[in-house]
């Protein structure tokens, strides 16, 4: 998956989990919990949507690596 595709997939997934989050608010540095206010259930759903849409299952031990938009996009680009 290219970085562009990864970025698009991440935005789409966040749009589904937290439709109220303004796309403008999201930037590379956004932290999913603190800035976008996704709780653990939202996060699980995000991981689930990514698994469904991109066919990439992020194992739990990699959760810390995908705590920001940048981390998540990078992870998808590298593994997806």
């Amino acid at each position, binding site marked *: 998956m290219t970085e562009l595709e990864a970025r698009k997939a991440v935005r789409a997934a966040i749009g589904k989990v937290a439709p109220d989050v303004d796309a403008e608010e999201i930037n590379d540095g956004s932290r999913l*919990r603190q800035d976008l*206010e996704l*709780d*653990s*259930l939202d996060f*699980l759903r995000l991981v689930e949507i990514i*698994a469904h849409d991109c066919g990439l299952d992020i*194992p*739990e*031990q990699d959760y810390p690596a995908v705590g920001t938009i940048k981390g998540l996009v990078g992870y998808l680009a590298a593994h997806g």
Partner: protein
Amino acid sequence: MGDFLMPSLGADMDHGKVVEWLVKPGDYVRRGDLVAVVDTDKTTMDVESFQEGVVADLLVAIGQTVPVGTPLARIAQTPAETGHPAPEPTPSPEASPTPEPAPPTKEAPTNEAPMAPPVRHLAHQLGVDTAGIRGSGKNGAVTRADVEHARAARRGGRTRSSPRARGLAAELGVELAGISGTGPGGAVTESDVRRSAGSRQPAPSTPAEVKAPRQEAATAKPAAAGERVASLRRAVGTLMTRSKRTIPHYYLGTTVDLRASLDWMQSVNARRPVADRLVPSALLLKAAALAARDVPDVNGFYSAGAFRPSAAVHLGVAVALRHGGLVAPAIHDADTLTVDELMKKLRDLVGRARAGRLQRAEMADPTITVTNLGDLGVESVYGVIYPPQVALVGFGRVMEQPWAQDGLLGVRPAVVATLSADHRVSDGLRGGRYLARIDELLQQPEEL
């Protein structure tokens, strides 16, 4: 004959607004069937029927706000209520002055149109003779609309209309009988009324687009987001003020070692697809529910000067809404669920709470509430009790902490568990036992 009343959906609710009817006159409802959607200050909820019968009349128009206890609909008794269980819904007395529906056999007249079983069922339900119906569906099949048409035609005099259409017609001074309806079964809809009244507005098809003369009455959608946040804020404020004014709170907190629980959870999750994975909250909630069963002084209601402990543990879960405010619906009998079941219910409940679609029972009867604010960052939370409950459990953020044990220092994941409890019912010793029990339970996660 019984009335379907505006239910109380929580200690703080004194009125509600009907935003949608899920049934119409003539429909057969069983106990537990969803009948209406009610909007309160806090959320929008599906409300179920407490009786069985045929809906005879809807008494409250969509958009109308009425006090708790107001009759919303009249439900006519059916034979089922008088003793013999009816395997099939029975037609209402009002709806069936006609002969029995034609039996769906070969003996049926050859000119009978094809019909899907659900449609036949509907016809039977409405007491409509299907033999005479000309189908408008594929290959001349009889559709639901055809059946409803036939019934409307038979009823003659009365024009079928929605409560909203009736309300609007009254408001605009339009005679319903003169309007030809375009709704299901030829029912007069709101837009038919509007058209008939010579309004310039294009007939809107969705409630959201409706710009009606009387805004409140015409808006079937829940209040706009801003308004919703404000009213939710007020409702939370009123309830919490009452809590702090009447309940003598005391507060306890303890740090719980989560190493065993999280190790167990991670090993379980590693073997599972994402959809079946657990989050720490599921374990914390299960422990809170089990401990509440073991220490009944924190589980139940205080009202009229006395505490009534509850045998069941209906665990309220405080859910922060994304637009602001919070609701605390219940997971019923949480102590009896497996961690997996609890996890599933939690996801479902939180999803629906945020979508504004909770059910009456979920809002009305938590026996103890848990707030899991730590999920979003704080180390500990001392909550305010939801009256008439007598305790509120808080969990902070799961974080790594230096942990001294047996003279050695290590690093472990831990969480601060807190209890706010009602001093009229329990004291610190009992409350402390509750938290200690949670701690014990979390040390043996496989037993949860």
